[in-house]
């Protein structure tokens, strides 16, 4: 067995033989090894999260024509560490009348719900946490815990701005969950599995699902941004109306956890976008050298994350009613139409050589029809609005 071709297996075999050599039972050994793996994985994710603070600050600075952090370390690379020290030594203020237990649990669940996602992420060939056969739904389930943490934070803070922010955020998250789940159904139809391993493996050799269902990828991106609560859907943080949303009363490290959760969530959704529609860790020579696959995966996830940031710092915030209308009157019907079209095309063309162009064409046609319908209805709306009467000359 070659270390480069299967590092996890080599290390785990070595550790298993070591531990069973000490007289531990096989079951206990495997649990201990999983624990070690989990702790290592979460630690790696958290270190990545800390670096994301730097990435985010640097990128937003570039978008806004600033330099960004540039004092601590080369290119300000060590800036997140003073930030963390500051957050830790800040006094933790709990507002009067707060519901203590719920108030303290909310940030933990918020970050936890994002960390949970990494249990099923296939990082590279033969490097993954659990190969769950319901991984896609597991992802949705973790997202619903995030929703719960937001409403807990908003309610327990005993602050009406926090509660209003939580209402808005939760309404947006649950509304956009429908198109997101439907977008998740599209890779499921294409592979016949909910397992992220299978979905990634079906995309080997450049056979990306983005080519089969570009509209599905777009739907997933839009609803993921709303699920993240990022601009243009960051209604919870309308600074001028409700200060900063559900985490207004949180200080110090508890606020830090919300912030870290948000950044990691964005990166994780970049990763999911790459897994579901852009081939995951697949790339040249990635299946023989998994460490190369890790590199490809992180690069693809970073590109997804960058797109999300790009949108965040380019598009202005939209109003809550427009946002919910956009979801229920446009995104949800479109998502279900896409689901029907994909299911029917898939079962009609399965196995034929026309499969791939057919899928692409059906998506293209649906997108075109949607644009035509929107043009038609907006023209009707424009015509329905009466032109202002010209001033009458006397």
């Amino acid at each position: 067995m070659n270390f480069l071709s299967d590092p996890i297996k080599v290390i785990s075999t070595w550790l298993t033989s070591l531990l069973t050599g000490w007289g531990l039972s096989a079951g206990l050994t495997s649990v201990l090894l999983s624990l070690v793996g989990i702790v290592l994985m979460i630690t790696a994710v958290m270190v990545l999260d800390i670096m994301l603070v730097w990435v985010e600050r640097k990128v937003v600075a570039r978008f806004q024509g600033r330099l960004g952090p540039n004092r601590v370390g080369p290119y300000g690379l060590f800036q997140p560490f003073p930030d963390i020290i500051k957050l830790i030594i800040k006094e933790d203020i709990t507002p009067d009348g707060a519901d203590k237990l719920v108030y303290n649990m909310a940030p933990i669940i918020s970050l936890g719900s994002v960390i949970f996602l990494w249990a099923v992420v296939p990082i590279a060939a033969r490097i993954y946490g659990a190969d769950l056969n319901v991984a896609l739904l597991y992802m949705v389930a973790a997202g619903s815990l995030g929703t719960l943490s937001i409403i807990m934070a908003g309610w327990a803070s005993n602050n009406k701005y926090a509660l209003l922010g939580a209402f808005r955020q939760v309404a947006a998250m649950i509304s956009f969950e429908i198109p997101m789940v439907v977008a998740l159904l599209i890779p499921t139809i294409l592979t016949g599995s909910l397992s992220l391993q299978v979905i990634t493996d079906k995309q080997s050799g450049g056979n990306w699902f983005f080519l089969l269902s570009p509209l599905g990828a777009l739907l997933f991106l839009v609803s993921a941004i709303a699920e993240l609560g990022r601009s243009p859907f960051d209604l919870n943080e309308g600074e001028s109306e409700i200060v900063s949303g559900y985490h207004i009363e949180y200080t110090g490290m508890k606020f830090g956890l919300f912030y870290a959760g948000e950044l990691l969530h964005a990166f994780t959704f970049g990763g999911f976008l790459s897994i579901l529609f852009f081939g995951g860790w697949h790339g040249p020579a990635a299946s023989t050298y998994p460490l190369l696959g890790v590199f490809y995966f992180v690069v693809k996830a970073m590109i997804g994350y960058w797109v999300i940031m790009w949108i965040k710092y380019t598009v202005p915030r939209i109003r809550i009613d427009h946002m919910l209308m956009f979801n229920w009157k446009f995104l949800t019907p479109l998502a279900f139409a896409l689901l029907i079209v994909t299911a029917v095309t898939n079962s009609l063309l399965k196995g034929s050589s026309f499969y791939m162009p057919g899928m692409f064409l059906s998506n293209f046609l649906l997108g075109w029809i949607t644009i035509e319908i929107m043009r038609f209805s907006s023209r009707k709306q424009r015509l329905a609005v009466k032109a202002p009467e010209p001033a009458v000359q006397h």
Partner: protein
Amino acid sequence: MQNPWIYVGLFLLIGIIIPIIPIAFSALIAPKKPNPIKQSTYECGIETVGVSQVQLKAQYYIFALVFLIFDVETVFLFPWAVSLNALPFFAVAEGVLFILILMAGLVFAWRKGMLEWV
């Protein structure tokens, strides 16, 4: 691991413990000097008026209702989508019918103006 759920369970356990660590660490070394002004509800310096637990706007509730129904619908669609490649065409059509029936609900709510923000 034989059963991936054991791994997931351990992951959930540790995933909850790890965020607690910085909070606990912060609680150990951060100063603690509470006073009534500091702990009052933060509303940008203005005194709080009325109860903090404001009433929910009914429109959010309507959207939550629609969401609840569609969420359960997607749960039915997942097994259908997984076995889609093994299904004959009429079974695919059954799933499509299932979607269409529920879309009728959305169209109803739309026509009745219940999706409007009032």
